[in-house]
């Protein structure tokens, strides 16, 4: 993975010192609250309901073991012994004190980490496919591209005060695991159909929030060498023409929508033609230097199948169940990528204790070349484990309550922190996720239901990606009570789609029954081998709508009577 050079190191250390001085000046009154707020945000520090929240950048979700161990130190020393992985592949701590932040920044700098540009109207953490360098359907590892963009966008003097925040995602695979169509800019690495040269498909104007849109392709093929100049042209057009009169209309998706894809493309191409590409685009030597950090690890030459793995699978049903759900095929023979679910039944999605962090770090060090990934689905991936080691890893995970076999299944729920922590939230997310997780806990039933993504946001800003959940849940307030709107048919993949509303909002207590009714429609209507989202596409929303608005099913009444 990427390692800081002397410039990166100095830059981050200087930033730590700068913020330490800014905190001092805030406390002695030389900086007002209004002056300090944008400064703290640029350093990842929010004020939430109960405390400050610190968001730490995990570039494209990649962490070294020593970095995760340092996060565990911070969790124990300065927080309440746990952290939360977000849908931007970052980590958040929820109980931070302002007085401690400069020291925390310093601890992060010790392991080549920081909080720069994890908030504010700038280019945020670049996200990427969590199976980068692993997946068989990958044309090229997206991380060198993501790292190049990280370096270009870090403290970019022209783009530090954009109309609004700006998010970029990169995938190098056929199957989109990075939701590139739902970002301000999404990049898909592809091969030119005629020349076979590698370049990018450039998608702009996707996004969730108040006004969700699937992004539009503005360039079908961008040669690799032109990447930064083209990105510069896009962000420059946005910076000049994006709306600053209304915060809710300030994202690039609104500009693209208002002027149309054709006009947007024309403006970008015009700007691109005027830019002096060679002064902006990265030197090929620098590109090669960065790419070298992401060279494949020193894999052993192994048989395609491990007999030990197959034997454990055959003799241990619990292990087999876990492997079925959580193990992902690796392109190198004898290896596998595994997803550690942070969705234990009844727990808060994405939360991880300091003890679990240390265990995961140890496992990554021992079994996966000292590296791990955070997924935008709020799980953790060990990307390069020998199949023969999977059983030992699983046993360790079991001891730490980290072996929940539910990746991609109905209880693998995305949820934002919601009103349990977040000052912007309008309703809680976590308890809804917990109740649904308990409702669908039965392993056989989960397996029978198959792939189904439920995503929950506690406000319209959509940090929980509800619009692109196969089932989406949005928490709002109605007449002083938490109220939940349900959407159906969202999709975060290459078939990106925004879910449609099923009907009026419902009370929190009614959410599990309502979701169960939707799942029952699927189970009754599916064809052999058809997953939930495909059934929705085939039969349309009407049967689900009908079930959604139906009165509480008989079985819930029976349940009530049974309790009475």
């Amino acid at each position, binding site marked *: 993975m990427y390692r800081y050079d002397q410039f990166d190191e100095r830059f981050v250390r200087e930033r730590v010192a700068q913020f330490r001085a800014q905190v001092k000046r805030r*406390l002695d009154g030389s900086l007002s609250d209004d002056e300090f707020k944008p400064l703290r945000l640029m350093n990842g520090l929010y004020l939430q309901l109960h405390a400050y929240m610190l968001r730490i950048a995990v570039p494209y979700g990649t962490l070294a073991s020593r970095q995760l161990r340092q996060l565990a130190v911070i969790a124990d020393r300065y927080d309440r012994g746990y952290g939360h992985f977000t849908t931007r592949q970052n980590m958040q701590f929820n109980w931070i004190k302002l007085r401690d932040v400069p020291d925390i920044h310093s601890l992060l700098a010790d392991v080549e980490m920081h909080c720069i540009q994890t908030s504010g109207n700038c280019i945020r953490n670049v996200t990427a496919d969590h199976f980068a360098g692993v997946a068989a359907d990958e044309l090229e590892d997206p991380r060198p591209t993501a790292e190049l963009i990280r370096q270009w966008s870090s403290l970019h003097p022209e783009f530090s005060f954009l109309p609004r925040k700006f998010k970029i995602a990169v995938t190098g695979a056929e199957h989109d695991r990075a939701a590139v169509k739902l970002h301000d800019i999404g990049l898909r690495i592809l091969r030119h159909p005629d020349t076979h040269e590698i370049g990018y498909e450039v998608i702009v104007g996707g996004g969730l929030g108040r006004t969700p849109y699937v992004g539009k392709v503005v360039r079908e093929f961008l040669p690799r060498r032109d990447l930064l100049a083209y990105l510069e042209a896009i962000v420059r057009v946005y910076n000049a023409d994006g709306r600053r009169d209304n915060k809710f209309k300030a994202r690039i998706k609104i500009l693209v929508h208002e002027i149309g894809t054709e006009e947007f493309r024309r403006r970008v191409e015009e700007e691109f033609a005027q830019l002096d590409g060679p002064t902006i685009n990265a030197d090929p030597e620098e590109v090669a230097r960065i790419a070298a950090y992401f060279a494949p690890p020193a894999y052993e030459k192994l048989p395609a199948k491990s007999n030990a793995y197959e034997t454990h699978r055959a003799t241990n049903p619990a292990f087999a169940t876990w492997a079925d759900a959580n193990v992902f095929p690796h392109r190198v023979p004898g290896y596998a990528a595994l997803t550690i679910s942070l969705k234990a039944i009844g727990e808060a999605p994405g939360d991880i204790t300091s003890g679990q962090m240390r265990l995961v770090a140890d496992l990554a060090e021992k079994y996966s070349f000292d590296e791990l990934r955070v997924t935008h689905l709020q799980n953790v991936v060990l990307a390069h484990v020998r199949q023969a080691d999977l059983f030992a890893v699983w046993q360790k995970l079991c001891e730490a309550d980290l072996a929940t076999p539910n990746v991609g299944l109905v209880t693998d729920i995305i949820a934002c922190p919601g009103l349990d922590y977040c000052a912007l939230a309008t309703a809680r997310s976590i308890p809804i996720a917990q109740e649904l997780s308990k409702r669908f806990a039965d392993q056989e039933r989960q397996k029978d239901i198959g792939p189904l993504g439920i995503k929950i946001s506690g406000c319209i800003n959509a940090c929980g990606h509800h619009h692109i959940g196969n089932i989406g849940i949005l928490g709002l307030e109605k007449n002083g009570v938490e109220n939940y709107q349900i959407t159906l048919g969202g999709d975060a993949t290459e078939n990106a789609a925004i879910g449609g509303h099923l009907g009026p909002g419902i009370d929190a207590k009614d959410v599990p029954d309502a979701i169960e009714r939707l799942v029952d429609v699927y189970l009754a209507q599916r064809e052999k081998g058809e997953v939930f989202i495909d059934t929705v596409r085939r039969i349309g929303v009407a049967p689900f709508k009908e079930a959604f608005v139906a009165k509480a099913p008989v079985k819930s009444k029976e349940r009530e009577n049974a309790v009475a």
Partner: protein
Amino acid sequence: MAQPKRVPLPAILLANDLLDGDVVFSTGDSWSRNPAEALIAYDDATADRLEAHAKAAFAAQIVVDAYLVDVSIDAAGVPTPRHFRERFKSLGPSHRPDLGKQAQYGNAHPR
């Protein structure tokens, strides 16, 4: 310019401590972390006093994000915010009763 409409009384005033971020409640002339110790404004004069206290504390870099919250009062005289958002803010995360003020001072308030 007209003053923004004040929340219905009775009300308490809460804020976040600048250094710690923790939720604090005005007692009229100091700040307590215990919601039970909040000064309850039953009349405009007391609410004015709370707001003046907050304004001075904000100017002195002691608190941020201070505002009045309407409350109901239980039999023991303890205030509970009427809005669920402020109840969570003055208690702690609902799924983690081991954390926040609910753990520190006892979970006396209904959600």
